């Protein structure tokens, strides 16, 4: 059962990722990424990470991708991208290096001698990531990182507001100077 899910949603996530990287139109790229994010949420549920899966759908596939689509609409989608290569042989080199890195990583993960799985004690039970279990850890062991990321979020939102509010007035001043 899990193998069937892995094959189906693994194929969907790979297809979405490749569609995202190759799509000319940013809207199609966003839709491809959305397919990948949803199939990753399925993998999280299969791995008993229930809360992570819910957050993945709500925050990533919902909020973040909506923000992306919003900016794509704001910037305009019918602008065709310049696809000429600035650096010579950039794409063939990326393909070769990418294939090499994938080969190495998959070999390191899958090969018997290098497998990392023997490090883990055999037959451990998968942790059940319910909201209660995650919250208990989050507000005890991980309390300091939790406060740190809340600070980070405040700084990020202030930065975004500052970029949105103060940049236009500076440009107007420059125009009036010129």
């Amino acid at each position, binding site marked *: 059962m899990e193998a069937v899910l892995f094959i189906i949603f693994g194929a969907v996530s790979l297809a979405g990722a490749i569609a995202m990287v190759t799509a000319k139109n940013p809207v199609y790229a966003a839709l491809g990424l959305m397919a990948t994010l949803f199939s990753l949420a399925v993998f999280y549920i299969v791995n008993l990470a229930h809360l992570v899966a819910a957050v993945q759908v709500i925050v990533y596939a919902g909020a973040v991708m909506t923000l992306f689509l919003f900016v794509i609409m*704001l910037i305009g989608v019918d602008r065709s991208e310049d696809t000429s290569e600035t650096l010579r042989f950039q794409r063939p080199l990326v393909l070769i290096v*990418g294939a090499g890195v994938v080969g190495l990583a*998959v070999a390191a993960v899958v090969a018997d001698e290098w497998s990392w799985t023997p490090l883990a004690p055999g037959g451990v039970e998968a942790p059940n*990531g319910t909201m209660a279990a995650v919250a208990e850890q989050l507000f005890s062991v991980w309390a300091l990182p939790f406060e740190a990321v809340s600070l980070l979020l405040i700084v990020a939102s202030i930065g975004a507001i500052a970029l949105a509010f103060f940049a236009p007035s500076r440009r107007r001043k420059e125009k009036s100077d010129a």
Partner: protein
Amino acid sequence: MPDVDPSWYMGLAAVLFVIGAAGLLTRRNALIMFMSVELMLNAVNLTFVAAGRAYGVLDGQLAVFFVLVVAAAEVVVGLAIIVAVFHTRTTANVDALSEMKG
């Protein structure tokens, strides 16, 4: 059907990560480069969850939350910068930003 090992997810995550890295290196639309970064972060999240399952600890899933928050903050600031650049240059192509002028 064979049992799905956590290493299967690690292999899939490695492939997704490299696809994201390739997109970041080859595309020049700033928005699609950003989406590639998001894809790379998501691939790492999948390895966190898979490794947490293999070791039977919850910490992998907690690490995912922190990656998620950092990614959300990055998207907010990054998209604000893209919009600000677009207002001055009317392009989202990163090659158009090759000169330094305040």
